[in-house]
């Protein structure tokens, strides 16, 4: 992707539908992203704790720990991580809760890959801006 310029976008896909993660990873990797996929909330948090990501695609409804709970914890681990929620149904409650907790977008399944990609790029831009902003603040402060 041209957006990144210096490095590819680091994307984490979290969905209990294993095949969806697999194929989505292949398609997005083919588009120049660095993609990792996991199938549950605890796995996602372990990976987020281990390495930095720019954007996460996060399924709302998963067995055990749901997407909202993952979002809450993920934001503590990586405050700059941009999260795009992905859901099978238009639950207003989940969408509102997700936004309140700092998710950037709320997409409905089955989403069009071009739309998903556009949101990912948008999220990445936002993250870069926030990083630059933080860096300049730090410089001004130091």
């Amino acid at each position, binding site marked *: 992707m041209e957006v990144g310029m210096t490095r590819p976008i680091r994307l984490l896909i979290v969905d209990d*539908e294993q*095949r*969806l993660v697999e*194929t*989505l990873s*292949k*398609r997005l990797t*083919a588009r120049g992203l660095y993609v990792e996929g996991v199938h549950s909330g605890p796995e996602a948090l372990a990976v987020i704790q281990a390495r930095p990501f720019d954007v996460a695609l996060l399924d709302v*409804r*998963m*067995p*055990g720990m*749901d997407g909202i709970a993952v979002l809450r914890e993920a934001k503590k681990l990586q405050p700059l991580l941009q999260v795009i929620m992905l859901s*099978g*149904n238009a639950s207003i*409650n989940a969408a509102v809760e997700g936004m309140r907790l700092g998710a950037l977008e709320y997409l*409905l*399944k*089955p*989403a*069009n*890959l071009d739309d998903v990609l556009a949101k990912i790029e948008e999220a990445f831009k936002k993250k870069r801006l926030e990083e630059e902003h933080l860096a300049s603040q730090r410089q001004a402060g130091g």
Partner: protein
Amino acid sequence: MYLHSRVYAKMVAMIKIERSSRGALSPEAGAGRRARWAGTASHGRAATPPPGRRLRRTVLALLLVPPACLLLSALALLTWGPGGSLAFLIPVIAALAVWAALAWPLAARIRRELTALARQRDAFYEELLRLSRAASLGEVASSIAHDLNNPLAIMREEAGWIQDLMRGGDLQGAHTQAEIANALKQIDIQIERSREITQRLLQWGRDSAPQTESVDVNLLLNKTLYLLESELQAAGVRVVKELSPGLAQVRGGAPELRQVFLNLMKNALDAMRGQGGTMTLATRPERGGVRIEIRDTGPGIPAAAIEHIFEPFFTTKAANEGTGLGLPISRWIVEKVGGTLGVESREGAGASFHVTLPAGETLPDTGSGGR
């Protein structure tokens, strides 16, 4: 539940009727309710008092007669003095005769009023059942739409992946061929999965057709469970089945009993949502019929709430999650066929709802099924 606001308004109007009929014979209800009825009457439209009020008047009249008789005899005794002629008995006998003459029509009237109350109550619950069935159809449809969107999302990505490969040019390579074959196979798998999901919706429609007179409880429990499967899984709820084989068929209509099971399972699910747990479905023969238990390992029902949970519109759930109708409707359905619905729960130790249903061979009685 997805309830239209007009439907909700109608339910609220009905609950008022229900409350007035329920309060009819309970003494503590009298004092509190009188003021409200007085208020209703002053609107000018309540020309005839509600049946509950008429019934209380009748009972009051009946109860006043014996003290009146006693009073008359006491007066007679005082008038004639002890040791006098037996003439003092005349007013007593007269009073008793009057009372007997009054009691017969009054008793008949009480019977009539009670029947009217029972009928009104049945109409109330019939209507509630109709409304709640429509609401749960909405819920089932929403849940099924959600389940369907996952295979759809996978199919879209598989088709997209094939397109990606085609755009890549090299279609003859063994790797590309294998990828395409794999994607097509996956699409077929997801179509089969979708078909099973739509089958559930079709099954729901089929089971809603009236009116089987006897029901295989184990089969119906399994079918109902199927509707909630993905929701239970998403909530982290494990299901344990302790179903006795070879149970008698029970009395009742499949759509109505399914509504009961669905309500009880949904309550168990809601109690454990977020924290996970175990839902146990148990059946066993009991006194010629069947006993069904639906247990959860949720937080249990607070002691203060447990005596109210079968009252319409009482709910411990959040405003947009529960209407407080599931349990009262369930109890009504079960009692209508001569069964019982009860609960045991301690705070912090889960809840266990038990349903008993009589076997289906005997003819259903025509009783109107009050509490």
